[in-house]
């Protein structure tokens, strides 16, 4: 692999910032580090950049151990959350900085700076100082400054955090476009799960300094490895079940209220085990699915319906104090009419849409 992190750990006094993180990234990949505040995203980025040393473990870039290399020899492009443009330098000088450090000739500097500014669509702003630019423009300058040196890896630490929603979405598309144009291996840090899922080839989900899961957006969303991941990405129904029977490909388990549920079998699960199962709200429906898809059914009472963009979340009370959330699309609502509070209802979800997260003996 192009970039490998191996068993990295880091403590600050009494906080474990990074706890045995290993992951690898292929050349040209766009990978997102996703996690709540304090989960260690920046710390890992700073380790790759060389600003912070890990207590143990090592980092390999392009087959070379870079642990002992100082930051200025690593040739990485970094965009900081506050952009960290040099306030006393013009846009031109900011972008040219890395080239000047590399003793590139004046003519080539001018040419490459112009190219970089063109890539981030900021031509014509060369003479401005950073404080004469808007947030989005500063962000572009920071990006141009990082890509102009043709870095081995582009590290972006929450580069869109300070932008408003609309600009943010524009820049997301811009970033992907630039990534595709340059093909540079990119690590993007965010704590916005939607951003992570829409932008990345793969997502690494961190919490408390641990890597919970790394995979494609579809994979981490539909097949989360831990209950943290399931809960952090979108909304989740986490059902606590007791296994009553194990068949070849199917496990039959009981909700606290006694309803029997079927779950596709993965790993070693035995009768009597307690398991935790994830069902996404959008898989739960008020109506049986078309065809003969095998389904689970549960009797519920509607507690609340909250409208949400193109559909509605229904909060449901099932037997034995189990609470379920179902996402009902606008089309379904239109076809079958609204549900009202207190209404008794049967909900359905395809057996294949449930995932076992963990097993407790």
């Amino acid at each position, binding site marked *: 692999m192009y970039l490998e992190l191996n068993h990295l750990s880091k403590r600050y006094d009494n906080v474990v910032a990074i706890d045995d993180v290993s992951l690898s990234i292929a050349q040209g990949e766009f990978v997102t580090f996703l996690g709540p505040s304090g989960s260690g995203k920046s710390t890992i980025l700073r380790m790759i950049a060389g600003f912070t040393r890990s207590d143990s473990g090592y980092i390999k870039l392009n087959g070379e151990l870079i642990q002992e290399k100082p*930051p*200025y020899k690593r*040739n990485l492009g970094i965009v*900081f959350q506050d952009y960290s443009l*040099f306030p006393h330098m013009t846009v031109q000088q900011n972008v040219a*900085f*890395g080239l000047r*450090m590399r003793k590139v000739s004046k003519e080539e500097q001018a040419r490459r700076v112009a190219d970089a500014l063109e890539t981030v669509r900021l031509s014509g702003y060369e003479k401005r100082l950073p404080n004469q630019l808007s947030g989005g423009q500063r962000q572009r300058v920071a990006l141009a400054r990082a890509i102009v040196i043709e870095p081995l890896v582009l590290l972006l630490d929450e580069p869109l955090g300070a932008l408003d929603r609309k600009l943010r979405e524009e820049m997301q598309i811009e970033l992907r476009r630039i990534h595709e144009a340059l093909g540079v291996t990119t690590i993007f840090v965010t704590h916005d799960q939607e951003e992570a899922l829409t932008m990345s080839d793969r997502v690494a989900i961190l919490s408390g300094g641990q890597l919970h899961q790394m995979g494609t957006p579809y994979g981490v969303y539909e097949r989360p490895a831990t209950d943290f991941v399931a809960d952090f990405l979108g909304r989740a129904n986490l059902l606590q079940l007791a296994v009553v029977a194990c068949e070849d490909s199917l496990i039959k388990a009981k909700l606290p209220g006694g309803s029997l549920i079927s779950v596709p079998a993965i790993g070693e699960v035995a009768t009597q085990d307690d398991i935790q199962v994830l069902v996404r709200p959008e898989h739960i429906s008020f109506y049986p699915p078309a065809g003969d898809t095998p389904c689970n059914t549960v009797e519920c009472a509607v507690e609340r319906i909250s409208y949400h963009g193109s559909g509605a979340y229904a909060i449901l009370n099932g037997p034995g104090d189990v609470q379920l959330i179902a996402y009902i699309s606008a089309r379904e609502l239109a076809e079958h009419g609204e549900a009202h509070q207190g209404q008794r209802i049967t909900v359905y979800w395809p057996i294949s849409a449930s995932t076992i997260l963990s097993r407790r003996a």
Partner: protein
Amino acid sequence: MKKVGPGMLIVSAIALLFLVAPIFVAIPLAFSNARTLIFPPPGWSLMWFEAFFKRPDFVKGLRISLVSATASTILVTLIAGITAYGVVHMHGTKKRLVSLLLNVPLLIPVLVIGIAMLFFLARLRLSGTLPGLILGQVMLCLPLVFLIILAALENYNPNLEDAAASLGAPPLLVFREAVLPQVTTGLAAGAALAFITSMADTTMSLFLRGPGATPLPAAMIAYMRARIDPMIGSSAVIFLCISIVFLIIINRLIGFEAVMGVREE
């Protein structure tokens, strides 16, 4: 620019007048031709400047003042600058604790510090010497200058150092390109304050003076014990000129707005 109301303007004018008025009494006195302190002066002359430069104790005092103030300015600016640089890289309790400790001397009257310095320097066999005087002035200025530099570094962005390094700048260039531009203003303001405070210091000088180390303010106090005449005015003007020359030099180096803490937005 913010709008300033008429009330604000009047208050500012009065405050300014109050601050500046003494200077307008002292300056005319310096050019008086009277033998005694009469205001306004009956006629004009430069005789009191001539008298000033004819007194060996004053000329020597002026030289000692200049030497010690320059030395202590360099020392204080260096020490306070490095300390403040360290403090802006600290976080949380540590940062607050260090800043607090460095400000404690401000709470102690100069008189007390002077006495303490006297005993301390005696131990080092430095009392009454020029190095002793310089050390005393360093003590005097350090907390003030530290405070000024720290305030000027409030917007210091340590990330710029990382940014420069990641773009290929080795440590020395990081210092030149990312650190220096951010700290020169603060250092200059600190140096200006240190120089002026050291030059004008009287209390500490009275404690630490000695045969080869009597700065001008101490020499003047000794002179004024015997008589009071327009010589006070002329030495005040000389002081003023030195301060102005110093500020002009700093201004030439990095800009006046920076030194006086005024900045155009």
